[in-house]
């Protein structure tokens, strides 16, 4: 097969992340990987598979189970000009490392008045489904985003997953990648070459004048499903993939809301004190006189993730619940949206609540 023909392939996001990592390690000998399981036979859900054979155990370092200490070690190496990539199989495990991340990683560039840099990338995987329970499913996007000095990114597609991974590794700042486990399955076109997608601003994924939707990570996949269904009923939305939670650049979204007058934000984490609150606050301030109705937020309800599928049914926002929210926001369209909502409900009921929706494997 000629090189040209392989220039872009369909990959799932896990493979895209693996490719990004390998290419960065090839291109720059200062890049190295650390994590619990990075060198094991499963290779972090396939995202680090084979790297230890290629780059050796000095650049693919299997960690002791000691998240705080190893984060400090990664920071120390980063200060000396290395580019460590650390992986946590769950966001939740990184809770142990917050002192290092929120203080030393986030603040050292500021504290040293720009002299030191901390080019650290930390991948954290958001768990969901199969009864994960309360401590294997947390998101904490708004927690990381609260802290100046960190960059916080949430890829939603294989293309972005690769491009943001490359950009994160090359970035001279500490970048937290919040990577949804169910996003790993999503497939899409991924260029073969080493490219980066810039770590600033959202991406417009669907276009329309009736309403603006902002979603990130896995919530984007549900939102696409909703947007496509309601567009069949003639309701067309600007749908943004938020992509970058910090630094937060809302200018495109503000321009959109000025036009649509309506905004719904779908959070991947808890709604209360979540990312949606900040977006809603900033957009409201900027677009107050253009708003036709109050912006709305969807997100996880105000309790920990239950393990049982019996309790999970109403826990996560869905394409259906988003469509219902939109119907409430545009009363004049409510009647037309009944059909799509019903269709989305049927779709939802056709797959178990606790495994990835196979339909989302090829969302783009």
């Amino acid at each position, binding site marked *: 097969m000629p090189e040209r023909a392989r220039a872009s392939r369909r990959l799932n996001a896990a493979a895209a992340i693996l490719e990004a990592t390998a290419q960065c390690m090839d291109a720059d000998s200062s890049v190295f990987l650390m994590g*619990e*399981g990075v*060198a*094991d*036979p*499963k290779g972090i859900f396939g995202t680090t598979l084979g790297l230890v054979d290629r780059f050796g155990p000095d650049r693919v370092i*299997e*960690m*002791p*189970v*000691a*998240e*705080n*200490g190893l984060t400090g070690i990664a920071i120390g190496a980063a200060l000396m000009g290395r580019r460590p990539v650390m992986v946590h199989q769950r966001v*939740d*495990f990184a809770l*142990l490392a917050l002192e290092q991340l929120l203080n030393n990683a986030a603040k050292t560039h500021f504290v040293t008045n720009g002299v030191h840099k901390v080019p650290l990338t930390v991948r954290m995987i958001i768990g969901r489904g*199969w*009864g*994960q*329970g*309360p*401590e*294997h499913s947390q998101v904490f996007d708004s927690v990381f985003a609260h802290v100046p000095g960190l960059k916080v990114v949430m890829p939603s597609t294989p293309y972005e997953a690769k491009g943001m991974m490359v950009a994160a590794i090359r970035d001279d700042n500490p970048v937290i990648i919040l990577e949804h486990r169910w996003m790993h399955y999503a497939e899409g076109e991924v260029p073969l070459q080493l490219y980066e997608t810039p770590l600033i601003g959202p991406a417009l994924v669907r276009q329309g004048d009736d309403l603006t939707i902002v979603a990130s990570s896995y919530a984007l996949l549900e939102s696409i499903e909703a947007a496509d269904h309601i567009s069949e009923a003639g309701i067309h939305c600007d749908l943004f993939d938020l992509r970058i939670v910090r630094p937060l650049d809302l200018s495109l979204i503000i321009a959109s809301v000025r036009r649509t007058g309506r905004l719904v934000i779908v959070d991947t984490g808890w709604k209360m004190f979540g990312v949606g609150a900040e977006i809603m606050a900033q957009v409201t301030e900027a677009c107050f006189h253009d708003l036709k109705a109050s912006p709305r937020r969807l997100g996880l309800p*105000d*309790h*920990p993730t*239950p*393990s*049982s*599928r*019996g*309790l999970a*049914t*109403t*826990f996560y926002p869905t394409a259906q619940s988003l469509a219902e929210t939109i119907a409430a926001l545009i009363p004049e369209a409510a009647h037309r949206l009944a059909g799509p909502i019903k269709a989305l409900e049927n779709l939802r009921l056709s797959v178990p609540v*606790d495994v990835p929706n196979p339909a989302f494997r090829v969302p783009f």
Partner: protein
Amino acid sequence: MHLSAHGHVTRFADRVEVISVSGDDSHWEDQLKSGWGTTRFFAAIEARKANSDLVLVDVMGAIVMSGKSQQQGLGAIVDTYAGRARNDDLGNDVSLALYKDMLRNRRIEEEIARRYTDQEMRCPVHLSIGQEAVSAGVCLALDRQDQIVSTHRAHAHYLSKGGDLKAMLAEFHGKASGCCGGRGGSMHIFDVPAGVLLSLPIVGSGIPVAAGAALAMKQRAEPHVAVAFLGDAAVEEGVFHEAANFAVLHSLPVIFVCENNLYSVYTPLKTRQPDLPLERLGRCHGMPSITADGNDAEAVLAVTRSAVARARAGDGPSFLVFDTYRWLEHCGPNYDNDIGYRTPAEFEAWRGRDPLSRMEEHLRNNGILDAGKIAALEADIDSEIDIAFKFALESPLPGPGEVNVYA
């Protein structure tokens, strides 16, 4: 001074040895050269100072217990230390109790593994098959009011301590009748009346919680103890050391039980820690620390009884390392020796030391068990298991209604 290994050595695991110290001092330097190692000499010297001629030491040369062989046999020394009398009959009762516990846990987990592919238990499961001697031995040394705090690999601990089987299986099925009402899944099983305080899925997280339970016991002057179960990876978390330091400082009645199955998920111990005995990590905080054969339920029991006696006497915490091996994959119902992180030979060697078969053989040899008795025990257990699964399967799922976020 002549030093020789006592016959009980294997009984107390590879790494705990009994040294009988004879009166003849002349050969000690020869012994040293013959590979005996200096740590044993050191212990023997200490025993001499204490006027003892029988001393149980661990691999680091620390004296676990010592005494006079003429007055008391080793077993008696152990039991004196543990504050319990022991004779052959009780020995057999104890062995049988340990056997039953292991047999029950084995069959329950085998049934979980068998049924897991039905996809009715929709949560991760971390099975303890192969490791049953640890929970059996530890929990038999405990009273009901003693508390245990477990980990992600909690089933055996929960069951050996007396946790309700139905509530556990119902929880795995995500049912309202589960011990957590479906909130927690398999990594959160607990049972208040049985003294299973909590299980926690974050590695190391339960260690200080157990120490805190012990603090409460001490503050209320209760004669209970708390046990923190932990894996060989959990000692890598700093929180282990933080809890250990405080427990020693305040003489808390807590026992840190480290089940060393050589792996953290697929990562071997030697990739995560220097090749040194794990017990050093307890000893450095100043607590008695000992390694025993974690596939020998009686050894586990004896060592734990010592630690429990210490704790109840107000003498503070202990660190117990039990060497053992997990037969199945880290999480899930399958054998996974094919995927490359451990050799089939290693696995077979450990399977050869199956704690259940070893105990069965011991009891058969002593005439306590025969094929008929075993079949009867198995039938009892299987019917209990059937009933519990039926209960779990028939229980309703919880509805998305009330959630208890605040008390």
